[in-house]
């Protein structure tokens, strides 16, 4: 690689005196201050600001309707249109999960069940939301498209126990997912 010699720019008298630049800077910062006090900062409208700067103030204002489609919130399990739980407890998500937040206890589906041919479903499916990093790898790795990241983002609790999402809670968040795969569907 050749050596490139950079020439420093020659400063004029005005630039050397520096006070002009100072005053310009003051005008700039004060301009920002006035604009943000009036709620007219650049981008305040698009970001749905609270009227002070560009910030949305959280508990009163929610950004729910501004969430992008690709937003990754809490992971959840889904059932298909016949009410069958999609998860077959293959445990791929448990293995891929980088912070090891997922814990699955697999079980067999009894022979007299309608969906006996699916063979397996989770007995327990816990996601520790303290550990979850919302990376979406479980969603990506799932062969049955049973786990999805939803847009829920306010996962709070007063004890560690509250922060573990059990199977029941996960289906509650996930709900029914229609379409996509019909692998076990009778109609097919």
């Amino acid at each position, binding site marked *: 690689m050749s050596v490139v010699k950079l020439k420093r720019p020659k400063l004029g008298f005005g630039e050397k005196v520096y006070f002009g630049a100072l005053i310009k800077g003051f005008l700039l*910062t004060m301009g920002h201050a006035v604009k943000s006090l009036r709620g007219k900062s650049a981008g305040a409208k698009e970001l749905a600001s609270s009227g002070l700067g560009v910030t949305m103030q959280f508990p009163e204002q929610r950004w729910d309707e501004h969430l992008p489609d690709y937003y990754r919130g809490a992971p959840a399990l889904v059932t298909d249109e016949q009410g069958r739980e999609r998860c077959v407890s293959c445990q791929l998500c448990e293995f891929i999960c980088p912070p090891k937040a997922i814990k699955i206890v697999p079980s067999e589906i009894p022979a007299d069940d309608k969906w006996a041919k699916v063979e397996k479903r989770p007995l327990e499916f816990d996601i520790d939301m303290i550990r979850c990093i919302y990376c979406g790898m479980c969603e990506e790795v799932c062969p049955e498209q049973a786990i999805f990241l939803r847009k829920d983002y306010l996962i709070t609790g007063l004890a560690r126990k509250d922060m573990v999402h059990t199977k029941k809670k996960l289906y509650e968040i996930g709900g029914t997912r229609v379409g996509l795969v019909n692998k076990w569907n009778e109609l097919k």
Partner: protein
Amino acid sequence: MPDLAIQLLIIVTKIIALTFVVVLPLVPISVYFERRFSAVIQDRVGPNRVGIPLTLLGFKKDFHFFGLIQPMADGIKLLLKEDFTPEHVRKSFYWLAPALTVIPALITVCVVPFGSPLNFFGHEEKLVIADIDVGPLFVFAISSLSVYGITLAGWSSNSKFPFIGGVRSTAQMISYEISLGLSIVPVLMYFEDLNLSKIVQFQADNGWLLLPFWKNGSLSLPDLNTALFWIPAFISFIIFTVSIFAETNRMPFDLPECETELVGGYHTEYSSMKFALFFMGEYAAMVIGSAMIITLFLGGWSLGFTLDSKIADWNIAGVGIAGFIHLGVFMSKLLAFILFFILVRWTVPRFRYDQLMKLGWVIFFEAALVNVFLAALILAAPRFSTAITIIGAVLLIVITGAIIWVAKVSEDRPKLLRA
């Protein structure tokens, strides 16, 4: 003549009231303003939540006060944190250093006149703790002691970044102390007094140094001599203000603690209340610096525009309220100047170290020196004949030219002996 006990009581009251009720609360208030103002400049909101949590007591709504309780929460946090002393520090100096930064800043409070004398039923009481005749000199003497705190903190931390911070601080303080002292020589020549109370009284009667639009109690345009003196006064004001920024380690000059280069500078190894003391020392120094600038250049507590003599006799039931009005005026000026400090911090980027040294030694020192002679020439001109004044002006121009030439030559790169 009140007896000794009453005198002592008055002095103690003054110390407690002015230091702990007037100046110390200004520290958290300026921290709050710093956070809110910087937030507004950066299009943010800033701390606006901490208030009185009335909902905990069963009320419907919390009382936010625009977050004014935030600095209190900060203070409590710092108090309750673990006060950790690292293994490798030099213990006694490590413990001494934080106190050495706060105490000088608080001692200098005692010469600042906060308002005109309070009048209680005919008894006058000055709103200054110690009305001594060496005001500015006392402030310089004491406030420059705070560099010991920073240097000791840097050295006793026994680790490299604090050490560099301490060394930088020493060099910076020494460089700017000179221009700080030289820059107010013209001002003191103009006032012919070193007593800060008398300086402010003079400005109340004859116009602020930077706003000389009234004389002897009546509005008028300044005469030629005063108008001419405005030039050295303004140069003094700029040099003094910038040097105060450097003395208080505020933003464009906060090299002793710059986070980007030195982690935290001299207070890297400090935590909890010891860190809070450094923090407090910095802000207290800022408050005192602002107070000095206001007192010397912007009329101190005076309301200006000949209003001071008009309100001097106002009283409610024998208690003169002029003193309280003046106290309010002084505090508002102080807050305005603190806001200016904050604006500068969030506008001007930090100087490089060589730029800082060049500004101190090559520009401000020379400018302050020439400014002293310029002021002397203007003040002395009416007392001498025109010929002497002109000779003086020519000499001054020659000396100024010589100084500029020396400064310019010293900036030239040394010629390489072998190319």
